[in-house]
């Protein structure tokens, strides 16, 4: 069964304390791996797409990486405004399939 698993479920950091969020996937042919940010009461907002192992994408304090089994979202020197739920999702090569989402990691950054 195609599956995406995120860990940890929740993460509390102090401002400036760098860390990583994990997204492991077991799917039958990965076409792309997506990261989204979701603020409370709002829809997910697109962050990154990764297509092949070894690929990296960066945006401000966030960097996403991809291996053949998992993806990491690295947060460097986080600020309170980085607090949100981060979702990852896998797109398959198989036509006619929707994105498969993980359950998300809720990040809280305190000052």
């Amino acid at each position, binding site marked *: 069964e195609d599956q995406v698993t995120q860990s940890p479920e929740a993460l509390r950091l102090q401002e400036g304390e760098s860390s990583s969020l994990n997204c492991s996937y077991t799917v039958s042919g990965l076409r792309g791996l997506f990261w*989204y940010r979701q603020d409370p009461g*709002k*829809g997910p*907002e697109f962050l990154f*797409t990764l297509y092949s192992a070894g690929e990296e994408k960066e945006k401000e304090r966030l960097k996403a990486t991809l291996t053949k089994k998992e993806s990491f979202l690295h947060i460097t020197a986080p600020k309170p405004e980085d607090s949100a739920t981060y*979702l990852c999702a896998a797109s398959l090569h198989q036509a*006619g399939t*929707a994105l498969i989402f993980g359950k*998300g990691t809720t990040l809280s950054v305190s000052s």
Partner: protein
Amino acid sequence: DVKVTQSSRYLVKRTGEKVFLECVQDMDHENMFWYRQDPGLGLRLIYFSYDVKMKEKGDIPEGYSVSREKKERFSLILESASTNQTSMYLCASRAQGATYGYTFGSGTRLTVV
């Protein structure tokens, strides 16, 4: 930028009512999706549509139906609302064959009392 608009941010309905959730996108996307999101369960796919008048069941279609009469509009229908359908409902769209992810709407928080 693609805009996906959900007609209501908050909705309160009574058990047994027929409920319509509307979603409109403005970028001529072929694919549209309806998810519900619940704490601890993540996003679960209800229905999706590849094009006008086409629909496919997702993981949890029971108690729901959909309508796609025009390309830009995808409606989710709760035939007879029940309290276990209280949830955040998210609509998304994507161009056919696109390699990028979805664009989501802001969500509709539905409470069934």
